[in-house]
């Protein structure tokens, strides 16, 4: 079913135009009437059926005609000029501020535009007037992003510039229909909004899997040898090298790199170790499958090795046949169909929205080392018979991290990305999480875990909210990154929550497991940690709690906190919790 997106703008946006199909499947654009944007933003009454998001398309030229800027720009002192421009632009954002204050729960996207105006001469020595006005607007908008987790910005001119501003804007449309954009420009707007909306509701991909021959370098190493490869020299060799640089830059932001190649393994490592044109190193790779087996099977094996869903994988291969096989046999994997022209690859990879994230957290940058450490943990765990002894010996150091402005981005990221150990798979936004954590009686925190194998960072989130019954708390969300599975950290997290809830006077904990595509690993958690399935609970308890469970469609569990016994806590007995 499509989600409704409400769209308003300072210019007309041609509802019904085929360009809006670029929003992508799953979104139904609903347009406010022309010139209704201010009324819509200022309306304090919550809509009966709120949209999944509101989009405000702001063309600054609509609100600030050139002559309005002239007095500010006449000021000689740069500081005074900046201040005057800010004062001129700030009132234009009053409707936006009203919207953010009145409806903080509805995600809001502000797409703004103020294209280059004037000739090259204007910018020869001074800064063009429009550029200064745009800077003033951007500074004001950016300040609001910091304060409002539900606000996203789309600096539209940067995206339209790819098309060419002359192609993206159409004065004929402006005078015929009060629409500033061309149909092609409108399509760019729709596609960018679609990318933002998609990322708001779906996690970014985590792994880029690359082929080797004719993907990382030009030529087939087994046929032409090291010296015959196109890599590093001018022309195509430089393009392959820049493609590797783009991949390496992605890995620095936390995207995991792997290779799947039909090749002799020693040939591939010879290129990695000895070719002077190589940018990527073995250390950049988190895993690899170099053999003569089918690539779809190799990709699925890689996913299992890394404990990641294959749907977090992106596969890049020059060979269309290999791509088709992967699409058919490993359909969860996203397969890029790159153009035959390799010179376009570096930019294409850098611009790929599949990996884009709104924010990069400190954890992201440490990903590669964490997954390498995880592989090492799994290898050592496999050799040990006494699990408790093993876990006690790896210096586990758990701690709680309160939900606040500094940690809520990570909490929302866990909500968006955790598919496996996740009891209910509710994709809370930052605003949702902050609101929930602020409720009196709520217990909400992140869990941080370090051990001998590394510091995976904030890897768990628990949100328990009060219910209509003051002695009953509900486990709204509980999730754990798969990076720390096998350490019984979930038991420690639950124990911390139970202690806090008891301190606050709660007697019962109500929980729900909602089966999703990939969260089977969480299914046994509740019963395995002392909670009782609904059907087996004592009748008086069910009678008392039934009114609180009316809206729950999943499997319901409950626990009386005073008698709840949580296993595995001895593993953490001697650790120093902060």
């Amino acid at each position, binding site marked *: 079913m499509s989600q409704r997106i409400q769209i308003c703008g300072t210019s007309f946006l041609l509802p019904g135009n*085929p360009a809006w199909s670029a929003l992508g499947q799953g979104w139904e654009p609903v347009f406010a009437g022309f010139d209704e944007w201010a009324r819509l933003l200022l309306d304090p009454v919550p809509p009966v059926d709120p949209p999944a998001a509101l989009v405000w398309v702001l063309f600054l030229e609509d609100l600030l005609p050139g002559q309005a800027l002239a007095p500010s720009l006449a000021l000689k002192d740069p500081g005074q000029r900046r201040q005057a421009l800010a004062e001129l632009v700030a009132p234009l954002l009053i409707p936006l501020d009203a919207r953010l204050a009145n409806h903080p729960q509805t995600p809001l996207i502000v797409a703004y535009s103020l294209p280059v105006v004037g000739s090259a001469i204007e910018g020869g020595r001074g800064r063009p007037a429009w550029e200064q006005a745009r800077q003033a607007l951007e500074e004001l908008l950016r300040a609001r992003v910091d304060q409002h987790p539900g606000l996203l910005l789309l600096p539209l001119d940067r995206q339209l510039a790819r098309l060419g501003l002359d192609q993206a804007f159409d004065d004929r449309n402006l005078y015929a229909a009060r629409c500033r954009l061309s149909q092609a420009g409108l399509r760019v707007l729709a596609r960018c909004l679609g990318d933002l909306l998609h990322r708001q509701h779906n996690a970014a991909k985590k792994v880029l899997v690359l082929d080797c021959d004719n993907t990382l370098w030009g030529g087939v190493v087994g046929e032409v040898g090291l010296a015959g490869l196109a890599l590093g020299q001018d022309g195509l060799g430089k393009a392959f090298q820049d493609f590797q640089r783009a991949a390496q830059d992605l890995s620095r932001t936390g995207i995991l790199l792997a290779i799947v190649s039909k090749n002799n393994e020693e040939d591939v490592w010879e290129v990695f170790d000895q070719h002077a044109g190589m940018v990527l190193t073995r250390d950049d790779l988190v895993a690899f499958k170099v053999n003569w087996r089918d690539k779809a099977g190799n990709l699925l094996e890689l996913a299992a090795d890394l404990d990641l869903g294959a749907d977090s994988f992106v596969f890049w291969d020059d060979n269309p046949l290999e791509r088709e096989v992967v699409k058919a046999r490993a359909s969860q994997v996203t397969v890029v169909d790159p153009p035959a022209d390799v010179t376009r690859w570096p930019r294409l990879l850098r611009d790929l929205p599949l990996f884009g994230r709104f924010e990069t957290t400190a954890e992201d940058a440490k990903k590669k080392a964490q997954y390498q450490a995880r592989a090492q943990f799994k290898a050592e765990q496999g050799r040990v018979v006494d699990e408790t002894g093993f876990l006690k010996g790896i210096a586990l150091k758990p701690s709680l991290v309160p939900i606040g402005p500094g940690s809520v981005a990570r909490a929302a990221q866990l909500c968006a990305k955790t598919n496996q150990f996740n009891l209910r798979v509710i994709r809370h936004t930052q605003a949702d999480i902050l609101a929930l954590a602020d409720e009196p009686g709520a217990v909400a925190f992140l869990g941080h875990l370090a051990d001998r194998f590394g510091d995976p960072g904030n890897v768990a989130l628990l949100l328990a909210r009060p219910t209509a019954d003051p002695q009953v708390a509900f486990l709204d969300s509980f999730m754990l990154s798969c990076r720390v599975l096998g350490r019984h950290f979930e038991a420690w997290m639950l124990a911390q929550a139970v202690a806090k809830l008891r301190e606050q006077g709660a007697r019962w904990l109500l929980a729900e497991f909602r089966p999703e595509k990939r969260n089977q690993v969480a299914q046994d958690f509740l019963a395995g940690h002392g909670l009782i399935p609904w059907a087996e609970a004592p009748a008086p308890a069910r009678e008392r709690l039934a009114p609180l469970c009316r809206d729950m469609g999943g499997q319901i569990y409950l626990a009386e906190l005073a008698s709840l016994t949580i296993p595995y806590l001895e593993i953490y007995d001697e650790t120093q919790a902060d």
Partner: protein
Amino acid sequence: MKPKLTDLLRQLFPAAAFDGQDPTLGVGSFAEWDSLGHFNFLLLVEETFGLQFSVDEITELKTLAQIRENLAAKGVEA
């Protein structure tokens, strides 16, 4: 092969019922084909055939027959 104008009409207004042979087929022939629908239709025609109508043409071209005639004058068969 380039689509016909009636194909573009069906693409833009998939739910509308119309007779492609009707010589008067134009703005107002069905509910969705209002002035906004017509503007969107002309933009789709432009994009499909790689040409641009002037503001005057946008004002004057009201029926499928007129658009077809205008395109023919530009050497485009639709």
